[in-house]
């Protein structure tokens, strides 16, 4: 029998609330309740940065907040990025030791799952890059999915952000992922038709299951409520 990948499509949730859920799910890996989980969300507009904080001092944070977005400093890899409605954000909270994956092969697996997803919707020209600062999924010179993860005691957190029908103008205010001269794109922009987070999420879950040789299993309503109560 294949191992399970539990999934929870939690809807529109603020960044910090989703992070509390991630931390709780990660902490469960240290106890009897260990399960590999993928949390799927959308965020209200927010800019986030990773552990390389030098390029983003407080006045940069204030500039971005004045645009009406939230701002968070996180412990993930990767530079600055944007999350907002229309973008599918997925947080796999998995045990790399159990999956026999190193960090590099895990990130590669995320890229493959995202590429499978894009191809399902007819975007065949997806590619990745071998440059360490160009991790993510690209279509020509435009990034369609950003990746930034954290690994602690083999347990992952943070994850990926795939543009479905994101309002891409939010990216104009930053140099996304620190890469000057590169663009961002979305499934909707590439296909010329509206592609929603709700349509993409189940496809992404299936793609992860294919890559991990797992079977998808939804969080029950009770399980969801238990977690939401615990993070209050």
């Amino acid at each position: 029998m294949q191992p399970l990948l539990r999934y929870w499509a939690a809807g529109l949730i603020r960044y910090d609330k989703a992070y509390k859920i991630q931390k709780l799910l990660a902490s469960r890996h240290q106890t009897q309740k260990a399960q590999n989980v993928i949390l799927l969300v959308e965020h209200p507009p927010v800019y986030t940065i990773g552990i390389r904080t030098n390029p983003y001092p407080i006045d940069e944070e204030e500039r971005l907040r004045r645009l009406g977005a939230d701002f968070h400093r996180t412990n993930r890899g990767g530079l600055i990025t944007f999350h907002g409605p229309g973008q599918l954000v997925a947080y796999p909270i998995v045990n790399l030791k159990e999956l026999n994956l190193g960090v590099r092969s895990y990130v590669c697996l995320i890229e493959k799952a995202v590429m499978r997803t894009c191809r399902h919707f007819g975007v065949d020209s997806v590619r990745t890059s071998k440059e360490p600062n160009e991790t993510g999924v690209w279509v020509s010179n435009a990034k369609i999915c950003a990746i930034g993860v954290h690994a602690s005691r083999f347990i992952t957190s943070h994850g990926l952000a795939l543009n479905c029908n994101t309002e891409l103008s939010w990216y104009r205010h930053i140099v996304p992922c620190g890469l000057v001269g590169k663009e961002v794109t979305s499934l909707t922009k590439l296909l010329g038709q509206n592609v929603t987070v709700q349509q993409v999420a189940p496809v992404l879950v299936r793609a992860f299951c294919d890559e991990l040789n797992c079977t998808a299993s939804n969080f029950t309503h009770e399980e969801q409520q238990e977690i939401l109560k615990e993070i209050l």
Partner: protein
Amino acid sequence: MVVCSVVVRRLLAAAPAAPRHVFTGLRWVTSTPVKFNERKYTDKHEWVQVDGKIGTIGITHYAQDALGDVVYAQLPDPGQEFSQMDECGALESVKAASELYCPVSGKIVSKNTEVEDTPGLINKSCYEKGWLFKLELSKLHELDGLMDEAQYEKFLKTDDH
């Protein structure tokens, strides 16, 4: 069982490199002497090389390969104190920030600023120029619980690494 101290001394003299069993009153105490500059390893793929009370810490070849090209090293600052296995920093590669653990308890005395400027040294020279930080050990006996080179090589061959 009580053993004559003369016999104990002769046994110790016969096997100087072996773990030393010293009868101290009513207790037997075991300590493995650390050979000068011998590296010890953790199951998190970090190494520590001790000179007196100062340990130099880095990550192993296996770890740097599993990470990929390191683009950023977040190292602990001198003066900070950690207990064994505390998270004390992070290395970033392929948009992944992987935690660093302190393999032994102690106080940081220096960090490798060369690696902060050129993180790729960790990949190219993980045992020499790519060392990460040095600390003053507060509990030398913790070294007894770490793996030596042969044990670490064996560990890498198991499914549990």
